[in-house]
């Protein structure tokens, strides 16, 4: 009887032993995941075409005192690139003699010209947006990047791929002297150059 008990225990042990081989082990992860996070930055971009205005309205490559010159309101095309809405500003500066830096035309602050003082404006004639104006171009300051280019009711923000047209107008300084009823600048044959800057900031 004792041998039978031992045998029974032996058989049970064998069964348990065999079962142990088939006990499932803990499941493991056979895959893993990596999560990439990122945020697209704001990118501001505008382009202008053309970027040069060579005043040769008198036909001889010269300009006369106290005379208005204009490009026409559709002259320049501004295209907004980047990926965010922008506010655009325009600012001018004093005109400087290209070969004589000491020779300057001061940019007018009120639209009136004077001896050695000139004025410039930007013109818009946008039927689609009901926008028609001629606005004085100021000088940029630390407080202001210039005049807001499109402050009309449609909003002063331009969006990527927006296109706007504008022109420039310039009033030359009063003559330095007059001879025979005709005004002249004191320095003849001097090249004068100035830059109009259009800037954009994220809206």
């Amino acid at each position: 009887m004792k041998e039978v008990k031992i045998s029974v225990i032996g058989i049970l042990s064998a069964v348990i032993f065999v079962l142990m081989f088939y006990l499932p082990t803990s499941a493991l992860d056979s895959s893993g995941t990596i999560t990439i996070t990122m945020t697209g930055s704001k990118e501001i971009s505008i382009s202008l075409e053309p970027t040069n205005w060579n005043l040769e309205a008198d036909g001889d490559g010269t300009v006369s005192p106290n005379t208005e010159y204009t490009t026409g309101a559709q002259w320049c095309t501004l295209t907004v690139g980047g990926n965010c809405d922008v506010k655009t500003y325009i600012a001018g500066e004093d005109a400087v003699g290209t070969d004589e830096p000491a020779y300057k035309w001061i940019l007018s602050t009120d639209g009136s010209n004077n001896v050695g003082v000139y004025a410039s404006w930007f013109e818009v004639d946008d039927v689609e947006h009901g926008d028609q104006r001629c606005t004085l171009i100021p000088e940029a300051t630390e407080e202001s990047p210039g005049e807001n280019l499109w402050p009309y009711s449609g909003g002063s923000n331009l969006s990527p791929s927006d296109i706007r047209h504008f022109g420039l107008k310039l009033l030359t300084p009063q003559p330095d002297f007059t001879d025979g009823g005709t005004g002249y600048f004191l320095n003849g044959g001097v090249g004068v150059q100035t830059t109009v800057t259009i800037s954009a900031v994220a809206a």
Partner: protein
Amino acid sequence: MKLGIVGVLLSGIVALAFASLVMAQGDSEEITITANTESVIGITLSQANLDLGNVASNTEYLSEPPAEWCTITNTGNTSVDLKIKGEDAKHIDSYYRWNLSDDETNGEDEYVLWYHIAGDDVGSYTLITEGEITMQRIKDGSQSALSLQSHDDHVQFGLKLLTPTHFHAGRPMEANITISAVAN
């Protein structure tokens, strides 16, 4: 009645089995035990997140370090090949997404992902697509399947991401890369 007969027969079989064991004292029998260990497939990744922060358009970003950024370890007990797949990057608050390129070129709202295995040829990157592919080693210009042979075998890799040429700004994007192990 039938149950009774069956019960009697079973009792008889059990009794005979015990009896044969008891009577076989002068004999010997061998029991052959055969067993197969269970194959377990398992891997772990040392990294779960790659936060690139603010990204510029049309710009490449590398994990840091570029080749040893993440370690894949075989936690199972069998040799495995590794599969990898990516997915479109999704804005967490809308349906906006960046499609995952399948030809190594980016575009508007389309980005590109690659991986590089540590120790592989310098600058060798393999494209990650939405379709699952077997991860490859690139050594001396030739490719071979990347496998982890045994428990604790491991390999390191890095990621490279090329942002879209154009995208909407200020939208947090999220994309998952899944790496799986399959027995080879």
